[in-house]
Every structure is written in C-alpha cells, then in structure tokens.
C-alpha cells in the first residue's frame, strides 16, 4: 500500500473541515506563487482545440433498434500453477489412459495445461498435455536443464484436420481400413529429442528409472490424507 498521504485539510465531521478558506489560501502558498509572478497567478493560454471533423449523416438507418452486447475486455490467463509443481517434478497422473503413471513435468502451456513426458521409453507416456487438477505432485525432482521445450505449445497438440472424403459405399469400407493414426515421424523425433537428456538425468539417480516405470496405487493401510508425496 502507498504510504498514507498527508492531507492539509482533514474532514472533522462530514461537511466540516478543519481549516478555513482564508487559512487554506495561506497554507497552499498561493500568495507566494502570486508574489513570484508579479501579483498575478500564472496563467497558461488554452491550447487551440482541433476543429471538430464534420460528420457526414449516415446513409442507412436500420429499421429496428438492435441492442449492442455489453463489451467484454476479459483476457483469460493460464491457470495458477501449484507451488509444488516446478519443471522437473515427478507427477502422478490420476485419471485417463495413464492413471497411476509417474511422469516428468516439463512446463505449463499458455492454455494452463501441463506439458508432460514419460519419458516414453520408460513408461510409455509420450509428450502429452495434462490438467493440473488430475495430478498429484510429488516432491521428487528430475534434473531438466538439458531439455529444450521452447517449441511446444497448444497448437502442436491440435487434432489433425482430415481431408473430406466422399461417402460412396465401397470407398466407405476402404476408408475404414486406412483410419489408423500414423504418428508423423516429426513427432517421434521430437519425443526422442526431449527424452534423451531426461533419460541421462534419470539414470544417474539409483532406482529412479524403475520408479518412473511403476504405477502408483493405494495399498491397504495407506491413508491419502496422511501420506507425504
């Protein structure tokens, strides 16, 4: 908060101020300014105002009054990242295809989702986006300094738009067979490029590779609210 400003004329009661008009004149030092300027208060000439542009009358008046929607200047910002999640943290994914998998956090994308990788060779989780709400952050960290994640953003993960196919009966059956998703080689290379330095960092810590390869599950006697992750 800014330091409290000193008020020259505090309000004692609503409508009643402390200092009288003449005393305020003296307090503000208007007499000194006047004295400095030869008896008159310095006066600036008004800047010449630009002449108002003559507006042409509109060509078309709509018949009905259409209501203008209220203006919305809201700029969405990415979800606040939990303090426990920093680049290199091991996360436990809680739902979806990879539930229970322990995974390395890379960075938060502009949509708020977390960019995450297995690494793929260790547990089969590729470069993937994951919502912060479906994740437990552990306190284990992996050294992520050798990894470059600049090029990944939400557009990288957008669904591929398929070309329109004509729906003839024969073509329909043929098209079904070719429906398989072939990952473009570029994405496979990206995965390898991200995982290579990660694998080195992971292998330097004993048991970490096996840890990332194993799934998390609650066993008998484990109380989640008492567990330290």
């Amino acid at each position, binding site marked *: 908060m800014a330091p409290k400003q000193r008020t020259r004329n505090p309000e004692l009661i609503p409508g009643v101020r402390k200092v009288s008009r003449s005393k305020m004149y003296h307090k503000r030092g208007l007499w000194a300014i006047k004295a400095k300027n030869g008896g008159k208060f310095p006066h600036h000439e008004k800047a010449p105002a630009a002449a108002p542009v003559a507006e042409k009358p509109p060509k078309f008046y709509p018949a009905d009054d259409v209501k203008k929607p209220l203006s919305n200047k809201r700029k969405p910002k990415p979800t606040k990242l939990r303090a426990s999640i920093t680049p290199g943290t091991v996360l436990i994914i809680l739902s979806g295809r990879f539930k229970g998998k322990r995974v390395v956090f890379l960075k938060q994308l502009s949509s708020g989702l977390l960019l995450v990788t297995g690494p793929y060779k260790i547990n089969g989780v590729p470069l993937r986006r994951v919502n912060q709400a479906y994740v437990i952050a552990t306190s284990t960290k992996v050294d992520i300094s050798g990894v470059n994640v600049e090029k990944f953003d939400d557009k990288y993960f957008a669904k591929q738009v398929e070309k329109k196919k004509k729906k003839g009966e024969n073509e329909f059956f043929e098209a079904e067979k070719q429906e398989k998703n072939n990952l473009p080689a570029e994405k496979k290379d990206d995965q390898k490029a991200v995982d290579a330095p990660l694998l080195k960092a992971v292998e330097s810590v004993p048991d970490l590779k096996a840890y990332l390869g194993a799934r998390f599950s609650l066993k008998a006697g484990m109380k989640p609210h008492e567990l*330290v992750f």
Partner: protein
Amino acid sequence: MPFKRYVEIGRVALVNYGKEYGKLVVIVDVIDQNRALVDAPDMVRSQMNFKRLSLTDIKIDIKRVPKKKTLIAAMEAADVKGKWEKSSWGRKLIVQKRRASLNDFDRFKLMLAKIKRAGVVRQELAKLKKESAA
C-alpha cells in the same frame, strides 16, 4: 502389581494431547488432584491436566519450581534426550515419525529393499531346508 512410575517433581512425561503433542516435559509442581505445572526447555511453563500426560521412566533431580536455567542444566546433567532416544518407547516414536515423513519415491525404494531382503532370507531358508532334508 505395584505402580512404578509416580507423579513427582522431576518426572519426565510425554504430552499426548493438545498443542504440545509429542513433546517431552518435566513435572515441575503439582497444582491439585488433576493438574500439574509442567515445563520444557522450548516451552513456556504452563499447567497441564494429568490426563494429557503419559509418564515415562525418566526422572531428573530438581527442586520444586526451578528456574528455567536450572531446569535446562538438570536435564542436560541427566541426559534426558539421550535416555529417551535409547529407550524402546522413544525409538518407536522416532521410527513412526520417519515412516510418516517418507516421500512417494522413498516408499518405492523401501518396497524394493523389503523385496530384496525377503529374497535373501528365502534363499537362506531354502539352503537350510535342503541341508536338514539331506
């Protein structure tokens, strides 16, 4: 079966309820039938109900309501901390605390270690069985 641990001045007790849960305190005076004046090096001297205390075997030599400095010196002389950590009760509490503070990764490493140990034990057992059978 006679009682062995008495409420007396200098008796070390473990707080088992309340804000000071888990702390070792010394009974410094008895207020009435239910309450004691209790003190510890890192705590303001205060009253506590006996029901909140569990008496231990450790006793130190102090006069009624000693000054804080005297109390701390007496506790050092009797080595309360060392005796407590060597006692089986104290050791159990330390293990419990350690287990509760384990990381997810630590628990994984613990599991691997347990499996390894069990494997070694089983091998030895198998060897011994073979010898006794032969």
